[in-house]
């Protein structure tokens, strides 16, 4: 069976810079697929291109068997993809509660249940419900961004470097929460923190200079010192 999300030879430009040259990968349902690669390799651009925030200039993107390349962003999101951008995309002038409300497509029982579940996962959000997004700590912003993507019944979550800039203890908390979400939804995780990536991930793809150069099972990568050193600078 074909994966939930499949990219084939995707190319993309930012302005006139050719950033993605050949991105091909497949995300099996129910798993966490990790995108690894150095800074500037094109991981963020890949997620933005999936979301329609960047144009696909060549290649195909299909989600649940349907071509989604170059649809508008809201259409893509409404197919069932939740997105946690690298900068978290918190609406700073809105409170935590208002941020959640903008995200919630429905206010039915199921959505409320998901909301309760995610607030139990991140009690800080409940505690600071009326606080403005701009006043949250980096970790709280990350939690809010994840909660916002989770609250709708999405089939896929795209999460961009959730550990970035966070204290180790908060990284553990975020890691644990993504591990719990993993039970319920498919995830594509961009992550530089190898500890986190290896704990959560089932499969990995390595992106280098806009090309998916290597992939496999996460367990195998841990043993593959050569690849780790060559593409990730980890020895």
């Amino acid at each position: 069976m074909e994966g939930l999300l499949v990219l084939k030879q995707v190319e993309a430009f930012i302005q006139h810079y050719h950033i993605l040259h050949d991105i091909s990968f497949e995300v099996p349902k129910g798993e966490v697929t990790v995108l690894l690669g150095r800074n500037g390799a094109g991981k963020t651009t890949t997620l933005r291109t999936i979301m329609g925030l960047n144009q696909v200039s060549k290649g195909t993107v299909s989600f649940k068997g349907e071509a989604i390349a170059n649809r508008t962003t809201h259409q893509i999101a409404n197919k069932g993809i939740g997105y946690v951008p690298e900068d978290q995309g918190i609406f700073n002038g809105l409170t935590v509660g208002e941020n959640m409300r903008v995200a919630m497509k429905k206010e039915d029982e199921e959505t409320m249940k998901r909301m309760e579940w995610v607030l139990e996962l991140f009690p800080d959000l409940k505690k600071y419900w009326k606080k403005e997004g701009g006043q949250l700590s980096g970790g709280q912003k990350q939690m809010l961004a994840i909660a916002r993507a989770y609250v709708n019944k999405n089939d896929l979550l795209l999460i961009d470097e959730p550990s970035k800039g966070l204290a180790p203890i908060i990284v553990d908390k975020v890691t644990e929460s993504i591990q719990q979400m993993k039970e319920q939804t498919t995830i594509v995780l961009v992550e530089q923190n190898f500890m986190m990536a290896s704990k959560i991930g089932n499969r990995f793809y390595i992106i280098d200079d806009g090309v998916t150069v290597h992939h496999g099972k996460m367990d195998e990568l841990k043993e593959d010192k050569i690849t780790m050193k060559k593409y990730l600078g980890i020895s």
Partner: protein
Amino acid sequence: MDLIISLVINGLATGMLIFLLAAGLTLIFGLMSVLNFAHGGLFIWGAYTGVWVYQMSNSFILGIIAGIIIGLLLGLVTERLIVRPVYGNHIQQILITLGFMLVLQEMIKVVFGPDQKAVFPPEYLAGSFMIGDIVLIKYRLFIIVIGLLIFILATIILKKSRIGLIVRAGVMDKEMVQSLGINIKLVFMLVFMVGAGLAALSGVFHSIYSGVIYAEMGLEFSILAFIVVVIGGMGSFSGSLFAAILVGLAQAFMAYYVPALSLAVNMLLMVIVLIFRPQGLFQVKE
């Protein structure tokens, strides 16, 4: 003292009319970063249509409704045909909306004739009443009350309803709003239409306030609305109220004490704000 009070009331009434005009413009800029110089065209079309219906039907209420409807419709047309093709390009926006502004202005002359028209308030809003020695002109109080009600209503919608939150979120981070599955273009069209409706309403109210309407008011009020939006902070709704009242009061006092400056005072205020607080008095959090 009486003089001060009546100047303040003048200033507040002028300020409220300017606020109705600028409120839509500031949201349009904040949401889609569109520079719309046709906004004054919606204002005069509201004024002329409203006055025409008012004078035909002898009902001010019908005039108001007609003005709002023409504003909503013209807003729809302006957004779809004029603004949508030039998203993201400010120079093109200025040129095409300014051009459209002039078209709207000339069309007024074609449809309603080139002469200026006198307008009088309906009986129930004419005249004044006295409190002690102070003369309170009914129509001005009416404008202040309606303006405040609209501000309160709009604020409640922006703060409490989901669509209001989406509009504010869109001003802060458009991409994220889209990533949450919201059709920002549709939201923008709605905001544009409501903004146009408010500008047209401002036109209807203003026609009676000044007692006369003429086609060239379009460009004058386009520029005035921009000045107010810049002073208030582009994209800030409360900022537009504050700035509009500031401009209204400055105009009222200058007209009395330094008449020679009463037209230049808006520009002057804008220059001062731009020097000391280039982001405007109120700033929208990104």
